[in-house]
């Protein structure tokens, strides 16, 4: 791997939130988060709802400014970018969102929606060329025959088709990175896979790096086959490593809990009686996040140290992990081995 395209260094993002009584409080949605993203890679980010995944995605897309810390794009602080470089940043990082319906202007046709960025950034000249390029883009994302789609309104397409339109729009600006925030969670089960495959293909063929944000570990595993996986918990990355290694040797207790909670698509494995390695089910509120290691109230291995001190990301057996006791914690394995051996 070469130099990273994007670098987050100790980035903190805060919002104004309200506590139970409606009083304003500061909510650190991202906390001293550091992350490097490399050209052409696929990085999956997983975590429970509300842990800050989308916020992280928005920071990377330049929609939120870090309250603290720096975000470098191509080595330069994104906040101070000007002119050409700023434009390069804007165009270089694209975002695809979960709700494909909301992401398209309902009053504009697919063609109009795709045309706008091309024309605005002078990527095509003249109506003819624009039309041609739009056709090309739709073909690339597999919306063929193009005539069937190009002049339709968003509501006239299915969820999967709309998601492809979003892909087309994102790649129209020749970006270096695409951040995909839960792109398939609203797509029909039987169609999800094809969208994921499309992303893999774009990654391979166009060399675009993908940051895939999800709460579904299975799809994360699928798309990031050879890439990396980051696990977030309450605004922090708690573990980051290669996907294959993570699945088999998860080091952070939280990651272990997540993995064991995922049901496996076979009754034999799924029905194996197992106790989740976790103490409580309630995720603490960001407005009153626990001290020290955020996970300590739910962690079966927590000690007094965890309560006191915030663990930093450090080298683990593989990748990095933020846990005081990473070495001490039992190795986690999927029921995979036993199940498959029996079959």
């Amino acid at each position, binding site marked *: 791997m070469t130099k990273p395209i994007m670098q987050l260094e100790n980035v903190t993002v805060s919002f104004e939130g*309200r506590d139970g009584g*409606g*009083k304003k409080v500061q909510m650190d949605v991202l906390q001293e988060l550091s992350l490097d993203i490399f050209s052409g890679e696929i990085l999956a980010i997983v975590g429970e709802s509300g842990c800050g995944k989308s916020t992280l995605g928005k920071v990377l897309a330049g929609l939120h400014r870090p309250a603290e810390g720096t975000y470098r794009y191509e080595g330069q602080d994104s906040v101070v970018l000007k002119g050409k470089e700023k434009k390069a940043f804007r165009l270089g990082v694209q975002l695809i969102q979960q709700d494909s319906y909301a992401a398209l202007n309902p009053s504009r046709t697919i063609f109009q929606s795709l045309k706008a960025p091309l024309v605005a950034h002078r990527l095509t000249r003249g109506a003819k060329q624009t039309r041609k390029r739009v056709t090309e883009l739709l073909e690339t994302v597999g919306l063929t025959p193009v005539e069937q789609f190009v002049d339709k309104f968003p509501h006239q397409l299915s969820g999967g088709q709309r998601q492809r339109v979003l892909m087309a729009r994102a790649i129209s600006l020749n970006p270096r990175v695409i951040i995909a925030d839960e792109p398939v969670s609203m797509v029909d089960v039987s169609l999800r896979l094809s969208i994921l495959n499309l992303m893999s293909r774009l990654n391979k063929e166009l060399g675009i790096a993908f940051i895939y944000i999800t709460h579904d570990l299975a799809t994360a595993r699928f798309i990031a086959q050879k890439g990396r996986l980051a696990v977030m918990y309450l605004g922090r990355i708690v573990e980051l490593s290669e996907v294959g290694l993570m699945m088999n040797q998860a080091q952070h207790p939280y990651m272990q809990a997540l993995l064991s909670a995922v049901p496996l698509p076979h009754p034999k494995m799924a029905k194996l009686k197992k106790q989740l390695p976790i103490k409580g089910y309630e995720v603490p509120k960001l407005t009153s996040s626990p001290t020290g290691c955020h996970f300590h109230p739910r962690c079966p291995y927590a000690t007094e140290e965890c309560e006191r001190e915030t663990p930093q990301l450090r080298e683990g057996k593989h990748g990095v992990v933020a846990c005081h006791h990473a070495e001490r914690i039992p190795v986690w394995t999927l029921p995979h081995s036993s199940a498959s051996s029996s079959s």
Partner: protein
Amino acid sequence: MSKRVFLKRLASAGITLVLAVILTFILLRLTPGSAIDQWARNYANQYNITLDEAYIRVAAMINYDPNEPIISQFFRYVSSLVQGDLGKSMVHQALSVNDIIASALPWTLFVSSIALAVSFVIGIFLGVMMAYNRKSWLDPIVSVYSVVTNAVPDFILAILLLIVFSFSLGWFPVNGAYNFRLTPGLNLEFVGSVFYYATLPILTYVLTMIGQWALMMKGSAVGVLGEDYIEAAKVRGLREKTIRKNYVQKNAIIPLVTQLAVFLGAMLGGAILVENLFQYPGIGYYMGEATRQRDYIVMQGILLFIAVSMIVANFIADLLYSKLDPRIKIEE
């Protein structure tokens, strides 16, 4: 609503109030025409003197110094406002705006609150009925009715009511607030008379507002009927009546509550026409009277009073809204 949010709301209402004071003041200074002109002409006729002399007399009688700088007028106005004094009438020397409002307000409040309550209750009822029976005869009737009453401004309706029920049929008095032979008091006869005299003004408002309430309620109720919790309630085996009352109405009314303030505002503003047509002695009537006489101070006072009522009504509607809808943790 927490105390802090409450206070914040209060503060913003306060700022609006201050601005309203300034705006009404400026507006009234902009108004051309002088109180003296019209008054002098009436005076000359009434007391049989020459116009020139009438001008001089009236100029001496008017309770207003046209040469006083605007700024100093403003500060005088504000300083008396602070003490709750809206000023003195320019042309009725012994009368304060407070007196006028104190005597007129009960009538306006009486008519508008009853009209509001009656139209609200009936409108809500009709709206829910319509939402429930989308295919019944009620829907088109109420819809067309609403469209028609929406198309006919309330003052025209007032004229028509007056012509038909007072002038032609003679069922209702042509003007006034109660039978003058009765002594005001809390006796049945007097109260009956008050209602009798207020019938047409109330009817005017009720007839114009019912349709709007009904349509709003229908829209809101149709929305609520589409909510999952209604289906869930049916699945739970609740009675139709319970669902209608505790689910549909309770939820559908909420968005209408803020409208109460809007309607009240429309009524207070429209009172100037309606009350003048019925010669009903509410603030609209006195506003009209003051306008005819160019009594700026009274106009300004009543206008400000209406503005304050609006601010208060909005404020109360806000409170009510957050009371009724537990989801609202009033933001901002």
